[in-house]
Structure formats: structure tokens, C-alpha cells
């Protein structure tokens, strides 16, 4: 599904440069649910951004579903992001002047899907996250958990191969966090491959595999027994 080989990335800081990723090797299979952990500055977000094609690696290989991802033009990256990836952000990143259903339908708009079909698909996904009744509401009228569920529906809308989540529960209270995790787990149960960055142990333990980063290298990569989130809800 996803294969990364000797990935390096550094950022220029004034005259010197900061070596953030120092040779990452990672491979993720279909249906996995991986938590990437590490303290801030460990390079976990950078790794997620490169996997998400929002950022480019300096050297190294990245193959997604058999497709080598390198030297992408912005246009091609945009198309790949749209086709292969679904993003879930810590701060939801909903467009504030669009209502829930319009937000969910946005990736489909960039796929060039007709309006009617878009609305139908968006409705389907909103129903899936249990927010069909809130379809016409603006983000500011929704609670944090609801916003994140809309964002998840949006990430799912384009039916991506890989779901990328950057601290998906970072802005939510514990109870809501577990609700969201329960939902993400159910998506994984249906076969979605999920990659998430988190620094919370309990959240990480709800995944099936934990990759720990420190100072740009992988310190530990182990499979864990998944803690089901439903029991806390």
C-alpha cells in the first residue's frame, strides 16, 4: 500500500539547515491503522505532510499503491491528493462560509463530479457520520465533535485509498475524542487504511500499530493490541 525508503528532509533555517527526517523506512499494508508518535520536533508532522504530498522529500523513495511519488508538479500532486488521500486535521479546517454538506462535497467538486451526484454522495457520507440532520448548518453552528465528523465525512467523500489524520482528537475533550476514535476504528474495520499522528498514548493504543519517532529516525515500530474505543463511550 505504502512504501517509504530512506526518506530525508531538511528545512533551511537562516544559513544552516535543520535535518528533520534522517532516513525513514516505513511500509504500511492495506487495512492497517498506524499511529505515528513522537514529541514535538521529532518529525512526525513532516512525515505525514510528505506522505500527504503537501510537502516534498529531499531524497528517498515514496511509493503509494504502486505509484512512485516524486518530482510531482503542483497540478499532479493536487490530482493525486484528490484521488488517493483523505485528510483529517486537528483544527478541522472546514470552510467557514460553507455549510456541512457543501464542505463534504468540496473534494468531489474538484473531481469534476456533477452537482446532483455530489450532493447525493455528500449526503451518504454525512449520514454515515450521523450528521444528515445538520447538513444545512454552518461550521460555527456545530460542536467540535460534530465539526470533526463533518471533516471525516469530507475526507471520505472522494473514497480515498489512505486516510491521513493529523492529531484528529487534539482539539477535542476526552469523551468526544473517544467517540471520534470509535468512528475511525469502524472505518478501519471496513478496510480503510489509516495513518494518524498523535502524541496521546491512549489514542495511539486504539490503533493497531505504533511507530515512534525521535529526532528524525524511527525508534520503535511495533504492533499493538487495539483498544476499542466503544467501551469508553
Amino acid at each position, binding site marked *: 500500500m505504502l512504501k517509504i525508503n530512506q526518506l530525508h528532509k531538511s528545512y533551511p533555517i537562516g544559513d544552516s539547515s535543520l535535518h528533520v527526517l534522517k532516513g525513514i523506512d516505513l511500509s504500511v499494508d492495506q487495512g492497517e491503522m498506524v499511529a505515528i508518535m513522537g514529541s514535538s520536533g521529532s518529525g512526525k508532522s513532516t512525515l505525514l*505532510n510528505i506522505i500527504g504530498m*503537501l*510537502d516534498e522529500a529531499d531524497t528517498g523513495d515514496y511509493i503509494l499503491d504502486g505509484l512512485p511519488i516524486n518530482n510531482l508538479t503542483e*497540478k499532479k500532486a*493536487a490530482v493525486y491528493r484528490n484521488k488517493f488521500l483523505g*485528510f483529517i486535521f486537528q483544527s478541522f*479546517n472546514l*470552510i467557514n462560509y460553507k455549510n456541512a454538506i457543501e464542505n463534504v462535497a468540496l473534494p468531489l467538486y*474538484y473531481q469534476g463530479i456533477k*452537482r446532483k451526484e455530489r450532493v447525493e454522495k455528500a449526503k451518504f457520507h454525512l449520514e454515515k457520520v450521523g450528521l444528515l440532520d445538520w447538513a444545512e448548518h454552518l461550521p460555527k453552528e456545530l460542536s467540535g465533535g460534530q465539526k470533526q465528523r463533518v471533516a471525516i465525512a469530507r475526507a471520505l467523500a472522494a473514497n480515498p485509498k489512505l486516510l491521513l489524520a493529523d492529531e484528529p482528537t487534539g482539539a477535542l475533550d476526552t469523551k468526544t475524542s473517544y467517540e471520534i476514535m470509535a468512528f475511525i476504528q469502524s472505518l478501519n474495520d471496513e478496510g480503510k487504511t489509516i495513518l494518524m499522528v498523535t502524541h496521546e498514548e491512549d489514542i495511539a493504543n486504539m490503533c493497531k500499530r505504533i511507530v515512534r519517532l525521535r529526532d528524525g529516525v524511527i525508534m520503535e515500530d511495533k504492533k499493538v493490541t487495539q483498544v476499542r474505543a466503544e467501551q469508553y463511550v
Partner: protein
Amino acid sequence: MIDTIKFLFERDTWQELYDSMSKNKLRTIVTMIGVWWGILLLIGLLGSAKGMENSFNRLFSNFATNSVFIWGNNTSKPFKGFQEGRWVRLSLNDTDKIRDNVPGVEFVVPRSQTQGLVTKNLLSGNFSIAGDYPLLDKVEKKKLIHGRFINQTDIEEKRKVVVIEEDAYKQLFEKDAEAIGDYVLINNINFKVVGIYKSSNISMGPTTDMHIPFTTFQAMYNRGDKIGWMIITGKTGYDIVQLEEDAKLLIKNLNSIHPEDNRALGSANAGKEIAKVTGFLKGMQFLTWFVGIATLIAGVFAIGNILLITVKERTKEIGVRRALGATPFEIKRQIVVEAVFITLVAGLFGIISGGWILILLDYKYGQGAEAVLVNASVSIAIVFVALIILVTLGSLIGLIPAFKATSIKPIEALREE
């Protein structure tokens, strides 16, 4: 290209545009006011300048602008045995010589004038009476309401006919009385009224209330070949100032006046005076264009500026859209379409309200014969060129924030709080 045209006809495009504009009302309104104001000012200014120009043109339309008046004064230098202080009296000989010898002369019109009592039955008044040739009509077009002006036969036969000014007619005749064919007494001699005219807005030299044939005048007042003054007009292309000098030199020669005696001949050069006015008009037109175009450019920069601020505001949104799969082209296209749409709509509003302003100006200042602004208007071609320039600049300016929006990596855009 075809994609872009298709894009323009898609409901989604306009939905996006509508969302973005209606959710950012203040920004949209401020931008539109900027453009609207620019176009409005341009049209208002250009229209007023045109109206003023038309008004001047109408004023001068009955008047040979390329003309000079020359009359005799007292000499200030002794010459050829003559004492200084001699009164120079111009004669028909002078006018003939000028007509024949000065290059560039179109017409030379001799005139004589006096004040006299004119009586009609019980009504009478003191009027200025001029002896004129038909030629006067060529240099100072008479607006005849009834009848005709003096003709060549009148001159040859020294007929006792008179062409009177409208106000004089009103003083001498009962209201609505038929004057043509009727008689008035000038200097106790019966003159037949052959024409009534309306005085023009502008004239140089003394005002005249009545015109009688030149020859009749000379005989009646015993003037011989001496004239009051002359009007010389120049052919197009000849400098009227040079012509004036040439004519004066010739007159000095003919009348034994010292060549450097600058007081012996009086003159008024209409060409010179009018050149000042037209120069002023040209200056004003230039100013109008300058201000108008500067206003337009300011308007366009205002749009660019506001779009730029908006892009900064919307950086995160643009980052999200790109994460969701919007290509840089799609982002740019949306921003440019927004810029063009806003300028176009505001520009059209500006044209419409500019038109209203001109209608209002015309209503307030454009009525009647004394109107300050005559037919204040702007050619539709100029308006559309202005609009096209505005829209082009608007889209170019729109490109700046669009490029800025897509040049930052989506990841940086997303990080921005």
C-alpha cells in the same frame, strides 16, 4: 480554453463566486464602490468637459474667430511733416489695399457707426446705427428671425432699408406687430424694415442695434470714403497675429504714420483672445483625462489591494482546498473570475450612474441658449474602452494575489492560524 468557457457556464462557478462574495460583503462592497466611483468620475468629468467645449463652440459658431478689428487713434509721433496727435481716419482706400496686398486675408469689412434717434409713430429711442456691407454677415453671422440682411442691390442703389435687432424691434413696435415692410424714422428719414435679427452671444467691437446699407450711411452722414473701423478675417492656416501686423504696417504707410508709432492704430485681435480660451479648454480636457485615468488606476489598485488582503485572509482556506485536490490553476481561475466579475459589474453600474449624472447636469445646466454645458456627453466607445481597460487591469491585478495564493505550499497555508 474550451474548459474555461465551459467553466464560465457552470452553475458551480457562480455558486462559488456568490458564496465568496456574499460571505465577504464588506470587501465586495468596498471594492465595487472603488471601481464604480472611478468610472462615475471619469464619465462625469469627460461629459462636463465635452459640454463646456460644446458650449464654447456654440458661442463662437456665429463669429469668425480668426479675425482682427482695426481702427484709427491719434498719432503719437510726428512723421513726414505731420504733427503728433493727428487723428487717423481710415478710408475705403485702406481696406481695398489691404484686401489686395496683405497675404492670407479672407475678408476685409469696412464699417461705420453712429448713435441716432429712431422713431416709430409715438415710440422712439436712441440706438446705435451702423452702415454695413452684406459681407458683415460672413464674419458675424446674423441670426435673422424675419426677413433678410442687407444685400448688394441695397448697396448699389443706396436704398433706405434697415435690419433691426430684436430688442430694438421690441422698443419701437407694438407687441406682435408686423415690422417687415413697415417704416421707421432714422434721422427723420423713412427707412423700410427688411429684417429682424437676434443678437449673438458674443461679438467684438461696439454693439449695434440697426444695420443700414454702407453707402446709404456714408451719404446720409456725409462720411465720404472715411470709415469707422474695419474687420479683417484671415484664411485658415494663416496666423492672424501676423496678418494684423501686416495690415497695420500697410495702413501706416498709406496714412503717413511713423512705422514705430504704436498708438496711432487701435486693434482687437479675436484670434488671440479665442486662442486663450481654446488653450484653456485644451488644458481642461487634459486635466480631465488625467484625473479620470488616475482615478481609474487608483480604483484598480484598490481592487488588487483588497484581493491581496483577502488572499491573506483566505490563505488557510486555499490551503484546505488544495489539500482536497484543487489545482493551482483552479484556485487562480476562481480568484481572477472574481476580480473580473467585480470590476465588470461595478463598472457597468458606474456607466449607468455616470449617465444619470450627465442627464442631471444637462437638466440643471444644459437648458436654454445661455447654457453652461451644451449636450454634456461621453462617446460610448470611450466608455467601453475605459471598461475594457478596467476589466483587463482588474484581471491582471487579480493575478497578483492569485499567484501569491498558489506560490505558498499548501502545508504553509494550512499552518497559518
